């Protein structure tokens, strides 16, 4: 049952001669198998598919031959069984006439299907009504279904409506463009599939109602759809709505306006109004995919125009050459004749007929010159305003024309250039025959290119700045490292200054320092002892009682003074050694200009030259085409060797003085090395000396105590002290000999 639906009207529109009778009076015929099928990887909007077969592979009908690349993309299937004969760039049916990668299949004539089944069976469900939505979407995507009305937007992507709640599904059966009857014939012969597709779409979208808009010039199609509705018992959800014939009522935005009265906002999508619009052909393809597992491998294409004898609709495998289809239809090419893919309003003339039928090819129009004369030269715009009246998008085509012509793209954009659906109504009515749409296409392309360039510039800016940042960071890091290294070197230098001996035994550095300190302490102690002894001597001289001790004191004083002398000598020696240490450090091994290094450099460069020459020789023998490159490399290497050699020689000459300095330093090195060898003994001696002094000190104390108390042990003690003192003297003599070295 058809509900009463309040129809609305869009502004503008035209009524060109329909010319549909020629092709819709006979049933759809099946086109025969051509000798090869050419399948462009890019038949849809979005990223091209990615081939998953190789040349020489045999494929079955319906087998996936290319996988989608990314989200907005669609896979490709083999339309028949056969062999992949090529994967190469071929000219594709596009207004540009450019070539793109295509998979070429040579049919084996068997037409054997790959195993396939309906989604319901595949999932093993009892009720085919409750297939999960994601499974349905997956199937639609896997079957490569893309909008079959014209643009070819991947259907599964369009059905992902995100946060928008959809209440209305619109099926577009308007087919308003003259000559084309593919959808008309599809609705007549496959009405049931269309309704089934609508059911599936309703389920996916969760929408309450579906409107199928069909122009009133297709009564047979409307009747067929109504019958199918009854069959499917869907009269309550799905309505077939008859709309008045007017071009371009089949435009998505226009059809939505006709059926719902809502206008899709500029730059918006229908989903924001809760509406999704699909072509009837797409719905039928969805039904095929879900219920039978048949991917999109064929479509219905109208072949019409006075240049073909046998006008009508063909069910044709994707990839079938246009020439094959035309010859099936009895094409009689005459002079200056062209074949248009699509309709007379929005189609484009094909550069050659050796182009394949693709997912969006709804019509091949081969008109005679008389039927569809080529454009006369454009004349001046007379500002009649007819174009503005005809524009279904409520634009000002005349203004857009002026702006496009003057390349004032920003102004064109402000006048909503991007709302133009390129329907061609304006060009059709233009009395000056200005190819208006071509101007708009040009400006749109130029603006898109500008945008892409701006995006790329932004990207380049970010990358450039990131690079500069990175370089600065690296520099800072290098600087920090260099500083750290310099600091470490300075520290090492100062440590060396203090400890000459440290050079050979770096671990002993602190010990050497301690020695020097010890020596100095001893000196101080000895000097203090001298002062004390002198005092005592004075006292003894004044005190007649102690007169007998004077010689003892005197000898002790002399000994201590001797000791001071040796100590002073030791310290002087130590200091001298410390001073010579930094000099002994000599020429830095890290110096890149040291002759040794330069020599090494020269040697490696020479070695490299050798290998480069060898390689060149090999390459010359083999006749490889890298010979030139290698030769250039060899020349460079030769230059480098020469450079390294001269640098080395220069360093040899200019560094003669440095050399002597080096040998001097080496001399100092030796001395300090000897000192080092003597050192352990001297140290031991010193230790002994100290211990001995301690003992002497103690013996003296005891003697003092004994004397003070008038003990008779005094004598014995005095003897012991003298012995100790002798020993001390012996040590000191020894120490002074070693210390003097």
């Amino acid at each position: 049952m058809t509900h009463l639906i309040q129809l609305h009207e869009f502004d503008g529109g035209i009524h060109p001669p329909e010319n549909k009778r020629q092709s819709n009076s006979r049933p759809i015929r099946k086109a025969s198998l051509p000798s090869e099928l050419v399948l462009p990887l890019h038949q849809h909007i979005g990223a091209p598919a990615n081939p998953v077969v190789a040349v020489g592979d045999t494929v079955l009908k319906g087998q996936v031959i290319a996988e989608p690349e990314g989200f907005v993309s669609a896979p490709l299937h083999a339309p028949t069984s056969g062999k992949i004969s090529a994967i190469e760039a071929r000219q594709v049916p596009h207004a540009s006439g450019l070539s793109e990668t295509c998979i070429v299949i040579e049919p084996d004539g068997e037409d054997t299907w790959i195993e396939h089944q309906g989604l319901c069976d595949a999932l093993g469900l009892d009720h085919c009504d409750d297939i999960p939505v994601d499974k349905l979407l997956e199937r639609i995507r896997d079957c490569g279904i893309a909008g079959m009305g014209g643009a070819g937007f991947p259907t599964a992507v369009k059905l992902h409506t995100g946060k928008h709640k959809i209440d209305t599904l619109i099926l577009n059966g308007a087919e308003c463009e003259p000559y084309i009857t593919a959808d008309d014939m599809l609705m007549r012969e496959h009405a049931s599939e269309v309704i089934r597709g609508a059911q599936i779409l309703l389920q996916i979208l969760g929408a309450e109602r579906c409107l199928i808009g069909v122009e009133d010039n297709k009564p047979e199609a409307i009747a067929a759809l109504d019958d199918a509705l009854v069959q499917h018992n869907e009269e309550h959800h799905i309505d077939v709505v008859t709309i008045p014939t007017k071009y371009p009522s089949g435009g998505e935005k226009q059809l939505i306006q006709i059926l719902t009265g809502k206008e899709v906002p500029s730059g918006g999508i229908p989903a924001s109004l809760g509406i999704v619009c699909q072509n009837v052909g797409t719905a039928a393809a969805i039904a095929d995919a879900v219920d039978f597992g048949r991917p999109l491998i064929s479509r219905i294409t109208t072949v019409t125009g006075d240049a073909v004898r046998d006008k009508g609709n063909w069910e044709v495998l994707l990839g079938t050459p246009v020439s094959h289809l035309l010859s099936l239809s009895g094409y009689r090419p005459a002079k200056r004749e062209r074949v248009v893919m699509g309709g007379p309003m929005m189609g484009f003339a094909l550069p050659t007929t050796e182009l394949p039928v693709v997912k969006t090819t709804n019509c091949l129009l081969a008109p005679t010159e008389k039927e569809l004369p080529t454009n006369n030269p454009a004349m001046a715009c007379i500002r009649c305003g007819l174009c503005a009246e005809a524009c279904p998008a409520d634009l000002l085509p005349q203004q857009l024309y002026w702006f496009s012509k003057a390349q004032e793209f920003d102004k064109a954009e402000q006048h909503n250039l991007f709302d133009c659906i390129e329907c061609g109504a304006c060009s059709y009515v233009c009395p000056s025959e200005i190819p208006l749409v071509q101007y708009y296409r040009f400006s749109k392309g130029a603006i898109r290119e500008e945008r892409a360039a701006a995006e790329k510039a932004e990207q380049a800016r970010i990358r450039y700045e990131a690079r500069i940042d990175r370089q600065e960071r690296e520099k800072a890091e290098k600087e920090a490292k260099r500083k750290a290294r310099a600091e470490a070197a300075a520290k090492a230098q100062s440590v060396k200054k203090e400890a000459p001996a440290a050079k050979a035994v770096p671990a002993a550095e602190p010990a050497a320092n301690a020695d020097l300190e010890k020596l100095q302490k001893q000196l101080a102690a000895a000097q203090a002892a001298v002062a004390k002894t002198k005092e005592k001597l004075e006292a003894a001289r004044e005190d007649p009682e102690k007169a007998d001790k004077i010689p003892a004191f005197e000898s002790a004083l002399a000994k201590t003074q001797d000791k001071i002398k040796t100590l002073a000598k030791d310290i002087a020696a130590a200091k001298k050694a410390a001073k010579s240490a930094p000099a002994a450090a000599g020429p830095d091994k890290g110096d890149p200009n040291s002759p040794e290094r330069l020599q090494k450099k020269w040697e490696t460069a020479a070695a490299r030259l050798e290998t480069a020459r060898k390689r060149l020789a090999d390459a010359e023998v083999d006749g490889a085409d890298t010979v030139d490159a290698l030769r250039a490399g060899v020349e460079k290497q030769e230059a480098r060797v020469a450079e390294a050699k001269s640098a080395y020689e220069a360093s040899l000459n200019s560094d003669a003085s440095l050399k002597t300095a080096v040998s001097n330093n080496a001399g100092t090195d030796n001395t300090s090395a000897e000192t080092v060898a003597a050192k352990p003994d001297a140290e031991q001696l010193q230790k002994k000396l100290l211990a001995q002094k301690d003992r002497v000190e103690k013996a003296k104390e005891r003697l003092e105590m004994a004397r003070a108390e008038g003990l008779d042990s005094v004598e014995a003690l005095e003897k012991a002290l003298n012995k100790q003192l002798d020993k001390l003297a012996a040590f000191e003599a020894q120490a002074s000999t070693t210390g003097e070295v």
Partner: protein
Amino acid sequence: MSTIIIAIVVLASLAALFGALLGFASVRFRVEGNPVVDQVNDLLPQTQCGQCGFPGCKPYAEAIADGEKINKCPPGGESTIQALADLLGVEPEPLDAEHGAEKDVPMVAYIREDECIGCTKCIQACPVDAILGAAKQMHTVIVDECTGCDLCVEPCPVDCIDMVPQSTDTSSWYWQAPTTGVELIATDRRSLKTEAHA
């Protein structure tokens, strides 16, 4: 007397209030960097080729902000000069030929990979890191990132880098503007047609 005092007090408090507000705003909404430099930089093509005599677009933008001439960027060409003139309110000048000519097609670098000796010199030259490779390995250009600045061509010791025009495919191709016909009006058409046939 009291009215005057009131007026003074009111004005003083208003001044203090607005002062505080402005002070707050200047701190809160401070613009990082020099806005003019950024605006100029946004108009430059970001090819980073250095043809302007500066080591990149940003340095040139800084120089322009300091009064440098605006006609030194060949990749930007006349349209960039026009945009800069509009932004800065100065007279547009023709492109300074000393810095090079505007190219009519965008170019990208292409490395003939089998000839590359992997010296990494081009990587060091590329201002936008658009070259991929490693020492002694084959190098290649990431076409989408290449700005066509030419800077990698010169350093290559084996001359294996070419600048090729950017290729168009069906998604980047677009219709060219129709060649303007004879601008006649409809009544003149007949004579034109007969001429054409004759």
